């Protein structure tokens, strides 16, 4: 380990005084992130539970409402977000392998894919609004009454998901600067890894939103 090389910080410069070494500090940070993600699982879990209860009571209405969601936008976005998780994993991998230029490249790819998801979602929301899928007095009369509950959940869950994705894009944008300056390497990449955990979590939420919102009784 060469001292003074900015790309390879020595241990004392990256370890806070309450930790024995970099490994312990890194493990602590990961535990903290997983604790936060557990609260996020329960946060979204409440909405999934509400969905489950109402779907149980009003299954036919939910199925009829679900068929009004746009499967093309939903499927395109699924592929986009799965791919963004892949590029995010590659950004963290690049840091571990000390490929400094690759870190920035994969981070920018992830930010671009995240933004593309939001743009597609924006077009989808526009179509949903013109199709009168917003609960309220102007709700599409072709959909049975309790389809409004389905769309209340649709807007809330996809909306909160989009907020989380936007925060993720913001975090990755903040990390792109330090990454370009070569701050992350095999010895220190904790912020990058934690941002990655958050990003993958947002991906997982979508993995459940897609089948539950878009795919109820599509065969009917």
């Amino acid at each position, binding site marked *: 380990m060469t001292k003074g090389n900015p790309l390879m910080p020595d241990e004392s410069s990256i370890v806070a005084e309450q930790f024995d070494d970099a490994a312990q500090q890194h*493990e602590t940070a990961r535990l903290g992130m997983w604790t936060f993600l557990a609260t996020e699982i329960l946060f979204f879990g409440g909405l999934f539970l509400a969905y489950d209860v109402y779907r*149980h009571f009003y299954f036919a209405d939910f199925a009829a409402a679900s068929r009004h969601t746009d*499967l093309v936008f939903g499927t395109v976005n*699924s592929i986009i977000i799965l791919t963004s998780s892949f590029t995010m*994993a590659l950004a963290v991998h690049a840091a571990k392998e000390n490929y400094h230029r690759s870190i920035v490249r994969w981070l920018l790819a992830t930010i671009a894919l995240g933004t593309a998801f939001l743009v597609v979602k924006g077009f989808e929301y526009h179509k949903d609004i013109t199709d009168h899928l917003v609960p309220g007095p102007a709700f599409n009369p072709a959909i049975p009454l309790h389809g409004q509950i389905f769309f209340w959940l649709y807007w809330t869950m996809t909306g909160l998901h989009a907020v989380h994705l936007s925060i993720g894009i913001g975090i990755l944008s903040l990390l792109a600067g330090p990454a370009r300056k070569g701050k992350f390497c095999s010895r220190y990449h904790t912020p990058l890894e934690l941002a*990655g955990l958050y990003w*993958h979590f947002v991906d997982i939420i979508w993995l459940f939103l897609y089948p539950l919102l878009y795919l109820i009784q599509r065969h009917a």
Partner: protein
Amino acid sequence: MKTPSKKAYAVTWIVLVILHFTILGSAYLKLGWANTPLIVALAFVQTGLVLFYFMEIRYSTKVVRVFAAAGFFWLAIQFTLTMSDYLMRQWH
């Protein structure tokens, strides 16, 4: 700490996309009540892949694994208790 190779990430991504289209396709099969359990089960397989490889649970210490499982564990309790109430309300 051991980490997945670039190839492992690529394979994970390809399998995730294949599973995605399997889920989409299976929604058009007339399986009656079995449609939803099948689709949700496949979504859980996808989640497992993301957790194990992208989020590196497979390469994590036991304490990190326990912390990661805790959120899902409490969610399972929440679902079990709530649904055991709502499902049984119709048993008159």
